[in-house]
């Protein structure tokens, strides 16, 4: 069995395990390459039909290509698409220009909290990968969150022999990460093999492409000539830059900016 088959099998096993365990399950879809791959795997796991809702946390600041892609494939794939927006915060004029940290908290974290409260989700499928970011190295496939969304990474059960702790006490939901063991390159290889559609922003135009997409206000393209999936894979073979290099809104950057501003460095 080749590597991609192994990755796919493991992910589909996790998705089915999650569907069996959770009363109210949803898949988070950011419309990026990873969560779109996740949906592709969900469709495979259930023979072409995703049997749970797909949740898009919409900050209203996404690229228009993202919205177009979302609507097109929600229709083509017959998804039960739920769009969650923190309308109160948007009405108050929250945006990244005033305060990036507040913007992310209100329009992403709080929008998700509201959606969980409204729909009563107890399990959420996410397309995160261990290699994306240092802190994600400690993630588990089944990862509990408390009511405040706090993740206590020092208190996690080991996940041996494919035994997953998929239940926890009371006021929590569990995040399930079926792509945790994939790398960025694995995703692109799989996209190529399966011919999974993706947002055009990932392709280089005028010497730039997005390696990671999100809000238009906080993402920057990286220098690149990679216009095809093959080019992208080849580029990843040699690149030493981090995948999220172009993401200004990484929480750590936002924190750093706040600190530096207080000291007059910004």
């Amino acid at each position, binding site marked *: 069995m080749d590597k991609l088959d192994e990755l796919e099998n493991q992910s589909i096993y996790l998705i089915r395990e999650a569907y069996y365990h959770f009363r109210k399950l949803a898949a988070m879809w950011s419309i990026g390459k990873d969560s779109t791959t996740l949906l592709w795997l969900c469709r495979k796991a259930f023979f072409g039909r995703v049997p749970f809702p797909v949740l898009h946390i919409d900050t209203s600041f996404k690229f228009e290509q993202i919205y177009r892609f979302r609507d097109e494939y929600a229709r083509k794939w017959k998804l039960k698409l739920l769009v969650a927006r923190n309308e109160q915060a948007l009405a108050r004029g929250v945006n990244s220009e005033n305060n990036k940290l507040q913007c992310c908290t209100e329009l992403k974290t709080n929008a998700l909290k509201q959606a969980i409260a409204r729909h009563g989700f107890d399990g959420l499928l996410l397309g995160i990968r261990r290699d994306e970011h240092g802190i994600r190295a400690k993630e588990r496939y089944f990862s509990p969150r408390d009511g405040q969304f706090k993740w206590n*990474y*020092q208190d996690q059960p080991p996940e041996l022999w494919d035994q997953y702790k998929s239940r926890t006490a009371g006021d929590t939901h569990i995040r399930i990460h079926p792509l945790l063991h994939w790398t960025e390159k694995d995703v692109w290889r799989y996209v190529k093999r399966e011919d999974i559609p993706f947002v055009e922003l990932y392709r280089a135009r005028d010497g730039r492409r997005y390696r990671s997409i999100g809000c238009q206000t906080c993402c920057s393209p990286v*220098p690149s000539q990679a216009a095809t999936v093959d080019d992208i894979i080849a580029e990843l073979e040699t690149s030493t830059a981090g995948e999220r290099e172009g993401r200004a809104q990484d*929480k750590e*950057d936002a924190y*750093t900016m*706040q600190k*530096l501003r*207080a000291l007059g*460095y910004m």
Partner: protein
Amino acid sequence: MTADNRRLVVLSLDGVPHGLLLRLMEQGRMPTLARLCEEHGRPRTMRSVLPTVSCVAWTCYATGRNPGKHGIFGFVDRRTGTYELGFPNAANVRGPNLWEILSGHGKKVFGMNVPGTYPPRPVNGILIGGFLAPSLSKVAYPAEVGGYLEGIGYRIDSDAALARQSKEKMLEDLDVTLSRRAEAILHFLQQDRWDFFHAHIMGTDRINHFLLRQVAEGHPRLAPAFYDYYGRVDAVAARLLEEIGSDRPLMIISDHGFCPIRYEVQLSRYLVEAGWTVPTERVTGPLSIDPARSKAFCLIPGRIYVNVRGREAAGCVAPQEYQHVRQEIADDLLALRDPQGRPVIRAVLKREQVYWPSGSQGPDASAALALGLPPFGMGPDLLAIPHDGYDLKMGLAAPELFLNTQLEGMHTYSDAFFLGRGVEPPEGDLEIRQLAGAILQKLSVPVPQELDLAAVAPPVAAA
């Protein structure tokens, strides 16, 4: 096992000027340090780095390298080959730091709160990052140490935002931060037989930033509070000395000096006025510039970049114009006067003078990208060095060129201090970068060849 006289302890006090230290000791406000001086000689002045920013200075200290080699030029930098801002940290530092070098020779090492060490690299011992580390769960190697720190209410840094609300609140916060730091220092000191133990106090820099002018003017409440704080820092040194006994070699050092601010100077705005920088219609950050029409732009403090064609993503200065443009910008900067007509800029240095004294121009952005070098650290084309009192900021859309805010003190280059017991850094003019050599020698570890341990006095040394 290493004998005591080969096990070095470093206590660093961020941003304490040599002159201030002497005055505080004379006035009896820092008796422990004064006693140490009586026994082991007066503190020496030490030069910092250019630009004079803590993370740059401590990275020079930790790597023994010039910024041209280690790649850290400030708390903010632009991403290589772009006009976007980013925040370099220890992950972007080229070359091993002291803790890593010493670990490689089997030494037991400890570092705490030294700027520029976050995210901590793995070492033979413990490395706890400092300012700009976002949380206790990520601050330390090994990560478990974060649990202990959390338990004692350790604070990575005092909250500078408080100072902008009220100086009293800031003082309270500084106090708590210092007492928890002291507790952690003693805890770790007793925990193991460290060959190299370096603990850092950041609060001295903070209190200087926000109170220096009030102290100079003898403010009735804030000046005494300032002196009290230094008294408590001295008490921390006393506890540390008591703990280590009299045999162990010791360094107490700072990374730069300080002087009161006369004006914060919004240098980006000046470049706009002089026609070098053209901002975008809506300015959302320090680099909101129109690259097609901006011949140059600047980052804090006084780092000027020429937008050279071929090197920059949308460069508009022809390479053959480069030297000429640099000269014109330097002339403009030297002509800058404050509202009272006093000159603002003392000198404008070229990148090769400061960072690549061997004659090379240093890496350019396109070469760097081709080599897959880190995303930051190409270095500025020119460095503007202000006269004391003129704190160079960015302020692309600032309302005024010259401003005054709650910041009262700014960094100075030539008056950091060095106080040593049983450690002998080179004679003559001393630069913070040279301490790495002295430390390695003290610990009988061979000094790697790539270190820049000769003093390179840039032409602005004299105040």
